[in-house]
């Protein structure tokens, strides 16, 4: 019973959607750079920095790209989902996504997340949210303030009978 499994199934079902290609990226390398930069921004919308680092400070976007390479159709979902954000940014605000204010980036991500359950933007936003949070909280630098500061071994929980400190 893991949400990873659930989102994988939903994701696979959603692949019938029409791809949205990012415009104005003439070279493959440039396109890949823009996608990476956009993904870094999206993961920071999901996990911004405060007392603990932002997601991109921990390289979560790079980890997602690595992970995507090992999962069929995931790279396409990433580029199509980011393409959807880019297109909406240009349609709604007349600017590329990367040039929007943080508030507007957050609002666009929320729009994607709240889209119809099987739609491309929703499947993209849901999947990236879950995977970014998973990768982020698998990193010990994310744990500050949780009352949980080290892996469960080797110390275990000698205090498990007491109220938490």
């Amino acid at each position, binding site marked *: 019973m893991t949400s990873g499994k659930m989102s994988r199934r939903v994701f696979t079902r959603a692949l019938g959607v029409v791809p949205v290609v990012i415009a104005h990226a003439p070279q493959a390398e440039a396109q890949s750079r823009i996608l990476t930069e956009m993904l870094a921004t999206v993961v920071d919308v999901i996990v911004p920095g405060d007392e603990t680092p932002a997601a991109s400070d921990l390289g979560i976007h790079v980890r997602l790209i690595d992970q995507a390479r090992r999962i069929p159709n995931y790279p396409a979902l990433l580029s199509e989902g980011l393409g959807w954000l880019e297109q909406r940014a240009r349609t709604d605000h007349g600017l590329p996504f990367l040039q929007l204010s943080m508030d507007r980036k957050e609002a666009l991500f929320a729009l994607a997340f709240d889209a119809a359950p099987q739609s491309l933007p929703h499947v993209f936003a849901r999947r990236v949210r879950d995977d970014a949070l998973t990768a982020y909280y698998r990193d010990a630098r994310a744990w500050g303030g949780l009352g949980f500061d080290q892996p*469960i071994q080797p110390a275990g929980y000698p205090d498990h009978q007491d109220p938490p400190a």
Partner: protein
Amino acid sequence: MSAEHDFLVIGSGAGGGAAAWRLATLGHRVTVIEAGPVFDPALDYRLADADWEQPFPKKPGSTGPYDVAPLQPLTQETADIRSWNAQNGPYVTGDRRQSFGYHHVRGVGGSSLHFTGEAHRMHPRSLRMASDFGVAADWPMDYAALEPYWSLAEATVGVAGPDEDRRCPRSGPYPQTAHPLSYASRVLARGVESLGARWQQNALAVLSSPTEDRPNCNHCGGCLRGCPLTDKGSIDVTYLRQAVATGRCDVLPGVEALQIQTDGQRVTGVLVASRQGQQVLTAGVVIVACGAIQTPRLLLNSADAHSPDGLCNESGQVGRNFMETLLTTSSALHPERLGSHRGLPVDWVSWDWNAPDAIPGVIGGCRFGPAMAESDLVGPVAYATRVVPGWGRAHKRAMRESFGRVLSIAGLGESLPHPASRISLSDRTDPHGLPVPRIHSYLDDMAIARLRFMTETCRAILSAAGCGPVFEEFSSVDAFSSTHVFGTCRMGRSPDDSVTDAYGRSHRWRNLMIADASLFPSSGGGESPGLTIQALALRGVDHLLETP
């Protein structure tokens, strides 16, 4: 021609490991073949790494092949007790019950490698389901006949249990003192008390004090991911380690039994596959302990001119009477910080509804216990993706406010045989060209009524413990998700309606013994089966040696 192997055990889980130990410690030479790999607790269970929050590790060959036949359509009557999560919506979105899998490990130690160590005896009355309630079949022995073997199994794996066990009579105390409850579990236990029910410390194959070769538990809660300390009494670090230490037991990982062979009078050997190719291992006695899915598959795949319907299948019962885990869990946030990620997975249990007639209007019992670990709600990743909604700054704040406040409770219930629940051979074949097992699972009205009672009780316990609204539930009502599987080579008194006698020996092939959960005539009211599988194997071996 004498056989190469006096005793050949197929499968190294609870049944196979216990059988091999009994033989080796009583002075016999025994060979255990195991299809899966070896897991090294120190190297493979990486609970000291930052990314510890992972499922039990997978290795090449560490899961067995199977498929699941289409499951029954879902009806409107169960709409309010299905699996769901407040953020992710329903877990099952189609209109049929959906498979989430037969959870098992193929490896030296079998599924005990990722078990939580619960070590339960059966409720004495649950052994007489046919005589007293007209369902399933009676066990061909009574509680007293199994008692010495349960005690022996408890001593061998090192079970820690309560001073007083209200449910099952005992000939002596548990080998080890029960584990103390975690702080959060005590809060949950108060919920049970508020409903007028009782709880007791769970009997666990987890050391509360060190032994010569194993340390005590440090309550990390990671049992389902594999115990790196070896204080958990999995079969590899208990029975098999001791059996190998006698110098009379060889354990061969990566060796898969494909077919059992006979000469028409006796079982003669086993065709096996390994990296070296295929060969026949001849054996004086073959003990089959592949678990309740793979054992019937192996017997059905061993059909030959002497046994056209499958080996040991004179009664037609091989693969029939499949019983599965009936489970419900409910999870909610408690208003106070409890540190509920700490402690053993299931440190108490409420047996009040465990007797076969304890649930009003339903035959077959159930039990309840904490499930923070079994629901996998003990780490930051689970909180971030399943507990705390949204994203952004608010999500981070909510993470800090919520972590350690989840309480989760599980009910596990009786599963009764049904003609539509069985194991057959699939059209799909494995790399050796042999059909894989196909699981057919069906829930009848009684099972659904039991699941409804379990869900409603879980909700009531959480509410009585002071929790807010439930945010996640998981239920067998719409999800086939089985950790316990039983019944597919039922033991009994008569060759007409059972596969083996009361000692697990085939009625026809007297040098073939079955030693796993496929023997169970009924499942019990939510008891974990491992200890009983071990007890049956130990008793079976003693009988085999007394009556060759």
